[in-house]
């Protein structure tokens, strides 16, 4: 039994479905990426998993228990933590207050501080005054303080320098390995994603077009790149620049 099992998911805004018949899974301790071009339906899929977008058909189970009937807040309490694309932080709160809200204790648990030592240094700073990387760190820390069984992260690297992005992936790996947490990310940088994750689902045209381990997918990288840059955009053997 997978940690997260999504079957036949059809969801969208109003009556028009944006994603159709999506099937994907995440195991405990596994890091999975959802890849695909803009408009392929990746973000909508994540929103449907956390409950912010209504389901028109399909089933979502966490640890074998269906969560489809739960409100977003209840899904969060059941163990799904979603870091959305806009991060949805609380700009007028301080870092400490954000952590306190998430943990019910004044300090973050030791293992979270271990992952993000910078949290202590930033304690009294207002969230609005943080840099992009610091905000993304806080968004992840806030979610991890709830000790989720599934962590969902949308466009983690949006607007961040490659150096910063490269610092976050080891953290996600450790979360998966040490906490047994399943991690599902949407990542626009295919190469970066393939370097760090265990498995990928590739979305195109509102549904999952291909799934497989990194080893299985690496030879098909042209296909993946094509989803972003259009056919033959990526330099291949016969198409030297």
């Amino acid at each position: 039994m997978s940690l997260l099992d999504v079957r036949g998911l059809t969801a969208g805004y109003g009556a028009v479905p944006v994603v159709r018949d999506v099937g994907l899974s995440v195991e405990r301790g596994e890091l999975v990426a959802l890849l695909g071009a803009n408009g392929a339906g990746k973000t909508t899929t994540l929103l449907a998993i956390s409950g912010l977008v209504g389901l028109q058909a399909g089933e979502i189970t966490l640890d074998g228990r269906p969560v489809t009937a739960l409100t977003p807040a209840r899904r969060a309490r059941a163990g799904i933590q979603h870091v959305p694309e806009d991060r949805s932080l609380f700009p007028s709160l301080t870092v400490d207050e954000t952590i306190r809200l998430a943990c019910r204790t004044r300090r973050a648990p030791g293992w979270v501080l271990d992952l993000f030592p910078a949290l202590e240094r930033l304690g009294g700073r207002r969230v609005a005054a943080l840099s992009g990387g610091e905000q993304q760190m806080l968004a992840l820390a806030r979610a991890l303080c709830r000790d989720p069984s599934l962590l969902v992260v949308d466009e983690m690297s949006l607007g961040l320098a490659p150096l910063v992005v490269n610092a976050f992936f080891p953290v996600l790996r450790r979360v998966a390995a040490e906490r047994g947490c399943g991690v599902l990310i949407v990542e626009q940088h295919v190469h970066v994603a393939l370097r760090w994750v265990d498995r990928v689902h590739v979305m195109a045209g509102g549904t999952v077009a291909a799934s497989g381990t990194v080893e299985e997918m690496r030879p098909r990288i042209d296909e993946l790149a094509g989803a972003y840059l259009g056919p033959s955009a990526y330099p291949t053997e016969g198409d030297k620049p």
Partner: protein
Amino acid sequence: MTVPLLRAEALSLYYGGVCALRRIDVEIMPGELVGVIGPNGAGKSTLLDAITGFAPLTDGSLTFEGRDLRRHGPTQRARMGVARTWQTLQLFEDLTVAENVRTAVGRHSVSPLVRLGIDRLAERMPGELSHGQRVLVGVARALAGSPKLLLMDEPAAGLDGHERALLGEILRDVVASGTSVVLVDHDMPLVLGICDRVCVLDFGEVITDGPPHAVRHDPAVIAAYLGADEGEDSESPDGSGIGKEAVR
């Protein structure tokens, strides 16, 4: 040599301390179709907002037909001939398609609805139309004032293959009639296929500007889109890299 229709020099735009545009230089020639691409958050929409007057520039100069645009508000810029479409379309939902087009100030010889082949939708409400039709209504409204420059924000998003091809034809037609077009979109085949020139943004900067075939194979562009395909030596497992991006 011809004088550029729009000339932007060293455009910079900061939201609070965050840099959205960094010293951007862009020139648009009359009758030119220029594509603007780049990953999410690269500053493409912000650039359109800056040119149309919806985002306050921090620095730089912006001239249209030799006139300083920065001294004018969005309404005046529209009347000077700078039109735009919106990523969220922003159709006037309470008005019929014909009324949507009629709000535009300015005279036009051929009805833009006829021009785009959607005149049969004139009396329909936008809410009753398909997404593809709505996109065309947005384009028709922007063309209604006979603009000299048309800025388009992701018009192809959500269109199917057939509709994209149609959009491409329409844009070539618009350019052929003398209107310059700036096309911001994620659809690479469309942008690389129809544009005269493509400008690539990343982190608010122009990283490449040139003809489509050159841009397509530019390693910097591929890295911006797919992430650098480098070794694994740059990682810092303790998270110490976080917060240092400010020095970039």
